Structures are given as C-alpha cells and as structure tokens.
C-alpha cells in the first residue's frame, strides 16, 4: 500500500459524507427551513452550498490522486502530498460549513479563515503531483 492509498479510502468515505450532506441541504430546502432559506440567511445558504460542493469535489480529487498513484508506474507518492490532500479535503468543507453556522450579515463566520489554508494545501499537492508525474516520465 502506498501513501496515496489512504487518499483513496478517504475519498470514498468523504464522498459518502458530502453526498449525504447534499441530501440534508435538499431537505432544508424541501421543508423551507427559515434558518436556511430566509432572505436574510443567504450567506448561510451560500456557505453550506460551497461546503457541499467543495467536500464532494475534494473527495473526487482524493480518489483521482489515489488511482493515479496506483496506475502510473514510477510515480513516487510523497507523504506530505497525501496528507495535504486529505487536510484540504477536510478544511475546505469544514471552513465553509463553520462559516455558515454563524454569519455576520454580508460576511461568513470565522471558520471561513480555514478556507485559504485549505487552498494553499490543495495548491501545493496539485503542483507537487504535476511536477512528480512529469519527472516520472
């Protein structure tokens, strides 16, 4: 098992969680829960939507990274890349989600500050994978 196998596992579990969260958001919409759909709560709605979208997308990126490592010979997966990708997959959705729990009118809550950290981690691992793949060829 290489380092990126755990990304494969993380990715599938993460996909399960965030697809379920998507169902949760549909329920909030379906029952027109004011805390989510009222005019004054549009920032919360945006944050939860972004949490759902990023969680799902990052789950797919983790799966893609795991499959890449398995299928390409001579591609040396680094522990830092694997961990960064997992943390990006956690911090992105959690940051957006926490940002939507408490909102300040036009601004999300403090949790939103996790998002730039997640973005840096994601940028690092995508760049690293791209470079390493280029070298392995």
């Amino acid at each position: 098992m290489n380092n990126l196998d755990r990304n494969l596992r993380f990715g599938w579990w993460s996909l399960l969680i965030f697809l379920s969260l998507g169902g949760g958001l549909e329920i909030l919409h379906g029952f027109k829960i004011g805390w989510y759909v009222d005019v004054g709560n549009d920032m919360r709605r945006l944050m939860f939507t972004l949490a759902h979208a990023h969680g799902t997308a990052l789950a797919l990126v983790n799966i893609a990274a795991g499959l890449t490592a398995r299928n390409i010979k001579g591609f040396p997966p680094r522990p830092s890349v694997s961990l960064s990708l997992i943390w990006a997959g956690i911090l992105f959705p959690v940051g957006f989600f926490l940002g939507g729990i408490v909102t300040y009118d036009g601004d999300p809550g403090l949790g939103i500050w996790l998002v730039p950290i997640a973005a840096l981690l994601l940028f690092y691992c995508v760049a690293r994978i791209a470079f390493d793949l280029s070298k392995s060829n």
Partner: protein
Amino acid sequence: MTQVATAATLFGAAQEREFSLDGRQYKMEQQGDKFFVRMRSLGGDYGPGKQVVLVTGSHTLQIPWLETGEGRTLEQFPFAYIIAEKMWAPVSETFLTPPDLKEYYSIGAWNGACMDCHVTQGQSRFVAGNKWDSRVAELGIACEACHSEGNQHIALNRNPVRRFKIHLTAKSDSSMTNPARLTGPVSGLDCGQCHSVWAFNNMTDKIDFNRQGANFRPGHDDLGQRFVVQPNAPDHSEQKDFIRKAEPDFFTNRFWGDGMIRVTGREFNGLQASPCFRGGNFSCISCHEMHPKQTQQVSLTKWARTGQLRPEMDSDQACLQCHKAIGPNITAHTHHEAASSGSRCYNCHMPHNTFGLLHAMRGHQVSWPTVQESVAYGRPNACNLCHLNQTLAWTAEKLHAWYNQPVPQLSQDDQTIAAAVQWIVKGDAGQRALIAWGMAWEPAQKIAGRDWFYPYLIYSMTDPYAAVRFDAWKSLQTLPGFSDFPFTYTSDDHSLRETAARAFEKWLREVRPPNVIFPPQSALDSDGHFQQDVFQRLRSERDNKRILLAE
C-alpha cells in the same frame, strides 16, 4: 418611495385605462413595458402620448408622473391609485382637500416638493420658469437615507481583516451612522428629516436646498438648511411669523390649536413634543424597526402593514419597556378592566387624532386625554374616540373622579349630545373625517354600540369633502348588512344623495333590528331618524372653514 414606472411597479395598470375629470379625458396605453397617457378635451381628438416615467408611493397610494418634454421636469397624472381599494381616484380626492380644489399637484410638483422625501438624496435643481433638472442618488428610500453617505464605509470595508475585527470586537462600524447608537433626539431626526413639518431657515438656504439637495445627513443634530416647525416652541419665531403672513393656513392645515400635529406622515413633530422625548432616549426606533429579524414573507407582510413595529410593540410593552411600575397593576392606572381596550396604553395616550391619505392614524405625541383639548381646540379626546356614544360631560366627570382633572365649563349640547355626534355633524372637515373613520374602529364599535352609527355614516356619505365621504362609506361597510354596499365617493352631488337615500332606506327597511333602542345622546328618534330640530341646528353650526390635511 419612487420607482421607474413598469408593468410590475405601476399598480392598477391592468385595470381601468380611460379616465375623465373636469372636462378632460385620459387614456392610458401600454407599449411593451412602458405606459403612455393621451389626453383630449371632451369631443376632441386624443393628443400624443406622454410616457408615465415614475410612480411615487407603494403602501397606501400611488401617483404616476408623466414626462413633459422639458428635460427632467415631471407632470402629475391627475389620478392616483388607492392600493387597498384597488381603485383609481382623482388625486385631489385622495387627500382631505376642499371640494373646490381641482388640482392638488401640477407640473414640477414632484421635482420641487415630492422628491424632497420620496427619494434618497434628491436634488431638485431648479433651472428656470417651471423647468427642473433633478437628480437623485436612488429613487427608493435606500441605505443612505438613514445611514448617511457610504463611500468611505465601502472603501474601508473592502478589507476583510477590518470587517472581521469589527465583527469580533466592536458593536458597530464607526464609518457608518447607525441610528440605534445615536441619542434619542438625533436618532429621531433621522426619520424626522422627512417625517416632520419643516421649513427653510431663510431664502438662501431654500435656494441652496433646491440646487444642492439637503445638507442634513443622518447623525446631525439639526436639519441644516431647514428646521422642524413646532408652532408653539420658542425657536425660529421670525421664520414662523413669516410663514403666518405668507401662508395664513399653514398652521391650521397641519396642527391642532395647541400645536399638536394633526396630519399623518409628520410623526416626528409629535415625538418631539412628547414628555418621553425629554428623557433623551425616546426615538422612533423605541417602537419601530426597519430591519426586522423575522424575514419570512408572512412576517414581513405583517410588519409592513402594522407600522413597521418591533416585536410586541403593538402591545402595552411599547410603553412598559420604560414605565415598568404600571404593568403589574394596570387597572389601578387605567380604571378599566385589565384585558379591555380601555387598558391599552396606545388607546388613551396615542389616540387616532391625525389624518392623512384617507385614513386616521394614531397621533405620535404621547399625551393624556382631557376634555379641555376638545373644548378649546376641537381635538377629539381619546375617551370620546372610543366612547362615541358619550357626552363630553360624561368624560369630564370620569376624568375628574379618576385623575382629579378640573371640569371645564361645558355647553348644554356637551351635556346632552354625544361628542362624536357633534363632531361628525358640526365639526370641521378634519373632525368629521376622524369620526367617520373612527366608527369603523373595533373597540369603539364594541363599547359604543353600532346601531346608531348608520344614519350618521349614511349622512356623511354626502359630505362636501371627498375624504369624509370615503371614510363614511368604508366604515358603513364594516356594519352588518352593508359589507358589499357599492358607492362611488367621487360622484356628483346628485348621485351621492341618491345613493345615500338608497342606503338609508335599506337600513330602515332591511337591516335595522325591530326593537332597537338608540342612546338618547345619539340625537336619533326611536325610529332611527335624526331629531330634526337638533340635527338642523347642529348642521347650521357646521365649521365650514376650508381645510386641507395632506400628509
């Protein structure tokens, strides 16, 4: 507020399209999302269409404004749309105006007057003659109307670190005026910049205002080029003397004789004259809110229809938030049952003694009822606005017994005829309108009995003032047997009398209960007819002075 006229904003556009008034006919036509009005004299051909460019008003009444071909100068369409009734009526008959007043607004009225308050940061920009080159920051009443200019606020808050520092440390952003953080008088002036009777300090300020717009900004402690006119306050005496000479009816068309405001839309005058105001904390937002926390559509609709009040502020809580000691034993204070309408603070201390836009509204000068206010200034007191069937003598006796108020000298009529009967028959048009409206007020109907209202409301449907006729009709519709009674309150005299006669016959033959007993103070015979000697005498004493209660 003012809006660009479109199919979505122009109320009544899908309804009546042809109108006639004073020998002229008007036809409204739709072309795409635009509306045009063509006009002709009776028998003539329709002229070219003038576009309806703007509409003012969105809660109660809406007035369309037409292009004039003279730049940004607008002309009033002579009909307004009464939103609740879903009907058009001549503008001059949507305010309490003398019957001989044919045109209430005119060319340039929007530019020179209406836009002062119905837009945000308007500049009339008078050019010459009756030409204007008006500009606005926003057509609606938007953020800057209450929070002052936002340039600096927007620039500073592009920085997310600053925003989060404010979210987590300070309660409010100092780069923006927040009325909730101002003292009561300064906060109140934020609303009072429009919701007051104001006048210019001098001609220079008036010219400056017309060119540059108001220099008042929310957070200022005076109106800049203008001042709030309180007739009996010692300030600005020179300016008020000038107004008395230049426009002798200015004060009587806006204030009761003791200086209390009598028109709606000028609530800050009442607030400023209230004893509560002297405490320094009392302001409009003590009871009202502009940004309700409950934002479901149902809550917003209720909030918009009930005076934009904060939660619970439609109850005694509005007063008890300060006057806490009265709450636990309210009966000792009110001498009415605790659950009755007589124990509701508003009903005694903010009765419906202001009028505008075809309806009465609670006065915003917190006061207490006296018989003296009715005797000396003609203002219907709170007691007799509910106890419509009682005399002033009855009220004087109660107020003396309960609050040791002195009993004023009262006439024979004041001892035998209900105050409301006197006001609706011999009062001035403003008093008549208040009582005609008040006969639909539920607490008054419950306490005063409504069987005797019919003849007076039917009689008032022939009043010379359209506003009185309208309210008499609407009140009649709240009574059994008349809920769908049709009446065109803008009809000619002959039609009005015919409809009133039909209504009276209907009441007499179909609606009146067989064994009904009318209170003796109602001045009605046992069969429901007016006691002619009393009625004719009161009618001959009617106060016929011209009166114009706009808003």
